[in-house]
């Protein structure tokens, strides 16, 4: 606790003497000696505590999935169902048992499906002393409840006030700093200063969440004039990424506090904020982004192509809009460690404020960020294929499941095309073989 208090003071001092000591802050010590030691210790203790809780109470092992599914394709499974038919195959390819395949698939999806679970928080193998991650609550022992009570006191009474203070300092400094920098006319100094201000503020904010971030492959960091693409789990992703570099944000312009922040940010360096009406016009959006990327001195834009928050166990379909802009794509994989705090924002359940409060009362936010080598669209590759290629690379690096389902299924209904696709596949099984049979009757016996 000493380290963090000392850190708050250090940050205040920095803020006050910023204008006088500009040169010495080209390398902002976001980690003073105290805070490095504090962080390492804190994590080690939390790690030990979680592991000892596992040892103490051996909570119920929660399976990653509820059903064991057979992984066969439609053809394979139907083949299994039909394998012991007594009738010969030439008499039509429909069997009453064909429907059983669909029944089974349907019932399996009722019991456990791949998509809806992505829109709620991941279940942990063992409890990490946070009530919010406790899905099957049962009273285990007095000892555990006492430890949990201590945890609550520490988190709410000690950590939370410190974090709130830091967050407030961070955000107000962002607004003040960027507005001040906005008054400067000179190009180079202005850019350099604005990068400085942004970095400082994001680092303060990250401290405000007790975020410990590890960056891998820093040599692949996004360059100016590029597009940075990452998987989306929460609004904090922006803070996480901006801790290590400056990005031009893309998003909808809000009113209220967010609007104030957005407007002041734009004063120091160009970000891309859209009005709500503009967002609907895809063409306008693409051309604006293209213009931004084309100006090679602009900061790389940060886009989350999933379009919505997913719970960090998988990567869902990337919307192809971002991949039609052109330019180099710098994929980034972000993986949160769920043992210290659940970073997923379930926007249906919690609004932004309660989400941030939950973040600030978790143990910590531990993140791994991998910068992947840049990718460009290849000859003859369309935007969708390119998007899928980038998505697989990110999923592979981050250890996440690569899913083809659309993240917007959180709110919208699934398209009819998918059902029609299934129907088509089945029809070709029913009809196709028959057509083949009528054409080549002499090879009938070899058809089984």
């Amino acid at each position, binding site marked *: 606790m000493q380290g963090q208090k000392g850190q708050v003071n250090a940050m205040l001092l920095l803020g006050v003497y910023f204008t006088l000591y500009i040169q010495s802050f080209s390398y902002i010590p976001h980690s003073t000696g105290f805070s490095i030691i504090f962080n390492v210790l804190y994590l080690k203790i939390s790690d030990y505590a979680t592991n000892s809780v596992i040892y103490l109470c051996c909570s119920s092992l929660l399976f990653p999935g509820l059903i064991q599914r057979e992984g066969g394709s439609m053809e394979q499974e139907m083949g299994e169902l039909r394998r012991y038919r007594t009738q010969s195959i030439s008499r*039509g390819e429909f069997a009453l048992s064909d429907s059983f395949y669909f029944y089974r698939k349907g019932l399996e999806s009722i*019991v456990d499906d791949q998509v809806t679970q992505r829109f709620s928080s991941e279940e942990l193998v063992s409890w990490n002393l946070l009530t919010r991650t406790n899905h099957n609550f049962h009273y285990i022992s007095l000892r555990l409840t006492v430890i949990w009570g201590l945890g609550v006191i520490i988190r709410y009474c000690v950590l939370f006030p410190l974090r709130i203070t830091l967050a407030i300092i961070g955000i107000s400094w962002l607004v003040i700093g960027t507005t001040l920098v906005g008054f400067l006319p000179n190009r180079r100094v202005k850019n350099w200063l604005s990068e400085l201000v942004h970095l400082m503020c994001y680092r303060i904010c990250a401290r405000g969440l007790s975020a410990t971030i590890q960056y891998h492959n820093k040599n692949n960091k996004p360059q100016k004039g590029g597009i940075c693409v990452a998987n989306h789990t929460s609004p904090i992703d922006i803070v996480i990424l901006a801790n290590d570099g400056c990005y031009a944000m893309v998003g909808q312009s809000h009113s209220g506090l967010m609007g104030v922040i957005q407007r002041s940010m734009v004063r120091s360096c160009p970000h891309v904020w859209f009005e709500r009406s503009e967002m609907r016009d895809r063409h306008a959006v693409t051309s604006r982004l293209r213009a931004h990327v084309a100006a090679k001195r602009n900061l790389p834009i940060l886009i989350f192509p999933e379009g919505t928050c997913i719970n960090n166990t998988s990567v869902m379909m990337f919307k192809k809009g971002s991949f039609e802009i052109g330019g180099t794509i710098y994929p980034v994989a972000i993986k949160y460690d769920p043992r210290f705090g659940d970073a997923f924002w379930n926007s249906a359940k919690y609004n932004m404020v309660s989400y941030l409060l939950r973040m600030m009362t978790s143990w910590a936010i531990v993140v791994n960020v991998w910068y992947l080598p840049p990718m460009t669209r290849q000859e003859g590759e369309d935007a969708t294929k390119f998007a899928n290629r980038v998505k697989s690379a990110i999923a592979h690096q981050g250890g996440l499941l690569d899913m083809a389902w659309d993240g917007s299924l959180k709110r919208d209904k699934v398209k009819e095309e998918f059902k029609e696709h299934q129907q088509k596949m089945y029809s070709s099984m029913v009809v196709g073989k028959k057509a083949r049979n009528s054409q080549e009757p002499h090879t009938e016996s070899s058809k089984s």
Partner: protein
Amino acid sequence: MGSRASTLLREEEIEEIKKETGFSHSQITRLYSRFTSLDKGENGTLSREDFQRIPELAINPLGDRIINAFFPEGEDQVNFRGFMRTLAHFRPIEDNEKNKDPIASEPLNSRSNKLLFAFRLYDLDRDDKISRDELLQVLRMMVGVNISDEQLGSIADRTIQEADQNGDNSISFNEFIKVGNVYILYIDIDIDI
């Protein structure tokens, strides 16, 4: 938030469901979590829309039939007991159940009950016969628009011809079992929980 799952399901209820369906305690609590996560209205029952929200079910050609199987005659809501009762049909048959006391009533997930369930998915009007029309309906759902009416009609006719033994141009449950009997080992619509 997190503690809703078990506290709303009382021990006595779990015991009753266990006896009725044969699921284990942990399976019941897991399925109850699943039930509550599907129940967006939080009123303890599921409606057809709640099922439709599952993408994998919505794209299943026979999705609507499967959903209907959960709702008893004429009702629009299904509670947890009904949910479990329907799912119980698909619990795998365990070895120790095969040699059970023959006087006891047949468990929900016996082979013939599974087949009866599958039969009822075809036989909508519950007259214990699958007529040509009913068969055509299911066929049409499965193939969509990709096969013409005549072709589909001839497939249906052929299927009825093969299965029908008493010449009434429809498939009764016994005929269904016989046709199904040949591959009875492979039509276990089992779900391993």
